[in-house]
């Protein structure tokens, strides 16, 4: 979109603004400004943002120089008009747009409005605003309340306003947003804008920068401004941006490819950020509830309550102070440890304090499963459930449950951000989602990361005490995790080619069937699922189960949910599947067979997850896990080591049940 670019002169200094609803600004500054001038033609939003930023830097620098060190050279010319012209010229030149902005045209079109010329303003427009000004103010106030902590594209914000504000056609949403922005409740910016560079804090760069500033004089001493664009919504840099000719601004403007699924963020698209520029954090005061009491209340096992206490004390000590690095906490709980129960005390601690809490998980089905449990645990708090296609899109509940993708629509909204299964697809290895999770936390807030298999670098950070961490090494039923056993058998593709099942595997399967367990059988590739099901069905007799009770499912299977539910109600006793079911599915009495465990698709994290399907219930805590592979690999060894170390940690702390 295009906006009006204008400059306001106050008593002494100038300030540059852009406006998406010019009639609002025109009236707004009327009494405060000494002088005001605008470009007669609207300019693309991206350019306007850059120009405003540039002018702000120039003018503040000029001021500080005059006030402080008294440099001889005058930085700011007295005439703001000349400055504006220069800035527009500079920015347009720098962009190297294929359709250049005609600068002479711009220079010609500068209209000056001084106080005396007030009569020449379009009276109609002003009167129209005046008549509705009370109403518009009300809408703007509502908009700033509802948009607080959000970061929305124009279209989304307009939708939100039309949803939450009683239908009234007299106030245009853009005018309301502009008024809210002028009063400082919102920030309007371009969705793709130059990345603000923080000066390097340490290391070689820091010293290089300090030396550079010490040596040089003149304009070079100003901090380096990056010309690099970045998506303000998802944080993607230049490599994810694509520049295409845009009809809306008449320029080659960049759009972000990384967050395209959540609406298109581009250089000339308005982004509304519901965070005032200078946030004042009010000191939160509340009696810290004793952690022991809290954990008693939720009926946790000793291991769970120990971890919850550690996490709670982390939350309490971290509250209120702004830290850069150590604001996250890792809750490393083995599969089946009862993570959900553990988060309840944390959530309550924040909610009772009047804060906002977020539970984010990468997957939608987990959100749907968790929603009723949270509703039961926190019936008195307003809850919002967000996922692709959910109904309460624009609610601002105290407790928000969302898929990680939804987080890019928030900015500095939550006091506590809980990220469940941080190593699961799609959150794992997606810089966009990591950025979003970081962005949606308040500056004073903290993040708690939950995982059974945290990625390598986090494990290392935790062991070196760079990342505060609590481990839950035992399941809620207080039995050790089943340790995988090794089965040396040929690869799956070889088995399929020969269409035989080795005696070793068959024997193990028979044993599982005899003890009445259901069987998960994991294979690496989707294309192997169907043939392997056929192969097993041929051997069904020797396994003494019905061929119909052997089924397979994969990510390409359209009736996967049906199959999983029939696996749950025992009508399927052997399920061949891929990593798609490595987490989330809990079968009380089950054994796990992982074939081709040496395959590169199964890293040690996913091996641990798959092994974690066995022995989940208190009635059958000793399930069997088999790694079927011709060779023993690093990831298999790693996963076994991880399981063993958790078991030994559990016995060291005395969490394990005594054997009768």
């Amino acid at each position: 979109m295009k906006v009006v670019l204008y400059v306001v002169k106050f008593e002494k200094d100038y300030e540059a603004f852009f406006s998406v609803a010019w009639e609002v600004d025109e009236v707004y500054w009327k009494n405060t400004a000494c002088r005001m001038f605008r470009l007669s033609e609207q300019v693309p939003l991206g350019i306007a943002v850059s120009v405003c930023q540039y002018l702000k830097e120039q003018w503040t620098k000029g001021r500080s120089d005059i006030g402080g060190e008294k440099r001889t050279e005058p930085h700011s010319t007295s005439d703001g008009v000349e400055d504006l012209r220069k800035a527009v010229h500079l920015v347009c030149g720098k962009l190297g747009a294929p359709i250049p902005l005609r600068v002479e045209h711009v220079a010609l079109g500068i209209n000056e409005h001084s106080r005396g010329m007030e009569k020449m303003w379009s009276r109609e427009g002003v009167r129209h605003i005046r008549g509705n000004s009370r109403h518009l103010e009300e809408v703007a106030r509502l908009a700033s309340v509802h948009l607080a902590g959000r970061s929305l594209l124009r279209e989304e914000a307009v939708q939100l306003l039309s949803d939450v504000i009683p239908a009234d056609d007299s106030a245009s949403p853009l005018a309301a947003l502009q008024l809210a922005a002028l009063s400082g409740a919102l920030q309007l910016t371009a969705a793709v804008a130059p990345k603000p560079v923080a000066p390097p804090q340490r290391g070689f760069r820091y010293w290089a920068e300090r030396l550079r500033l010490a040596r040089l004089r003149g304009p070079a001493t100003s901090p380096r401004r990056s010309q690099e664009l970045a998506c303000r919504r998802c944080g993607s840099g230049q490599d994810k941006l694509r520049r295409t000719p845009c009809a809306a601004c008449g320029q080659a403007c960049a759009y972000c490819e990384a967050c395209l699924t959540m609406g298109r963020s581009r250089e000339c698209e308005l982004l509304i950020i519901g965070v005032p520029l200078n946030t004042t954090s009010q000191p939160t005061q509340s009696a810290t509830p004793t952690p022991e009491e809290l954990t008693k209340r939720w009926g946790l096992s000793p291991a769970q309550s120990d971890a919850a206490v550690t996490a709670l004390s982390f939350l309490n000590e971290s509250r209120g102070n702004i830290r850069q690095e150590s604001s996250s906490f890792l809750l490393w709980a083995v599969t089946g440890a009862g993570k959900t129960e553990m988060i309840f005390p944390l959530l309550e601690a924040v909610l009772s304090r009047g804060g906002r809490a977020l539970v984010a998980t990468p997957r939608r089905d987990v959100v749907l499963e968790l929603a009723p449990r949270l509703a039961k645990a926190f019936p008195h708090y307003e809850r919002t459930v967000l996922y692709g296609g959910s109904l309460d899109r624009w609610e601002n509940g105290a407790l928000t449950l969302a898929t990680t993708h939804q987080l890019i629509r928030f900015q500095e909204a939550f006091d506590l951000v809980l990220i469940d299964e941080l190593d699961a697809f799609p959150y794992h290895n997606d810089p966009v989602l990591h950025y979003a999770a970081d962005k949606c936390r308040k500056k004073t807030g903290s993040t708690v990361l939950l995982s059974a298999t945290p990625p390598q670098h986090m494990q290392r950070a935790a062991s070196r005490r760079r990342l505060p961490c609590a481990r839950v090494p035992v399941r809620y039923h207080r039995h050790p995790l089943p340790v995988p056993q090794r089965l040396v058998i040929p690869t799956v593709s070889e088995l399929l080619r020969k269409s035989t099942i080795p005696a070793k595997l068959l024997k193990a399967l028979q044993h599982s069937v005899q003890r009445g367990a259901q069987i998960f059988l994991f294979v690496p590739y989707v294309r192997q699922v169907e043939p392997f099901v056929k192969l097993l069905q041929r051997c069904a007799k020797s396994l003494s189960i019905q061929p119909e009770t052997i089924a397979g499912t994969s990510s390409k299977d359209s009736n996967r949910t049906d199959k999983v539910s029939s696996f749950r109600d025992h009508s399927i006793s052997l399920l061949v599947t891929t990593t798609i079911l490595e987490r989330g599915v809990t079968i009380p009495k089950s054994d796990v067979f992982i074939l081709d465990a040496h395959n590169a698709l199964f890293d040690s994290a996913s091996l641990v997850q798959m092994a974690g399907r066995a022995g989940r219930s208190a009635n059958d805590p000793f399930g069997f896990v088999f790694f079927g592979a011709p060779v023993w690999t690093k990831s298999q060894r790693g996963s076994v080591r991880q399981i063993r170390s958790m078991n030994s940690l559990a016995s060291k702390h005395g969490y394990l049940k005594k054997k009768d």
Partner: protein
Amino acid sequence: MRVNINSWFASVKSACPICGRGSSQGSQSIPIPIKHPAPRQVMATLCGSCRQAIPWIAYPTCRICGRAERCEDCIRRQVRHFSISRCAVGYDKPMKDWLALYKYRGNEQLELVLAAMLAFAYERLCEAIQPDFHAITSVPLAPERLLDRGFNQAERLAIRLANWYGLSYSPMLERLRHTEKQSLKTRRSRVVDMRGNFAAVSTALFSPTIILVDDIYTTGSTLDECARVLQQANQIEAKTTVYGLLWARS
């Protein structure tokens, strides 16, 4: 910062512009039915499964509109303003998704792929008639829609095609009315609604043969109306022949 030295020596993996997965070796065996090297190169970036999914219309059954099946519309129609038209693909579910990805979601990376697919239709058109085209143009969008979307998909495709095959692109039409989305209307109302939607931009570039590009052919009413307007605007000279070139035929 971790440095992965292995990555410096690894071959460059190009992700498929549509599904985003790395292209597999299997894609080499699927033939690309386009002669021009530039669009061929574009199509080669697609992964095997995406390339397999394209329902090319290699042999149109309807000689007029280029549909792969028998076409009742062309038989029923009494007056036709365009000469013939050719379409690249049938408009099935995957193609619908691709177009939505480009048109509505705004993934402009797909522009090249769709243009390359349109090149297939162009080559079929050249086979069907004597190729002596002078000009290529596209069906315009309403100004409001254009501002909303940021680009006119038909125009973009036409410009790409013009660059590859050495045609001269010029905008010849403008849209006067902002109509409801075509896909929400019935056949009858489409034909009636189209009337008076377009006007010719006064230009001296009119030539006896014009290729008109659009993304989808459903009933042909848009194409027919545009052809009518173009012919009307060019009455002074010899009769203009308008050929339709479309990406998909539903």
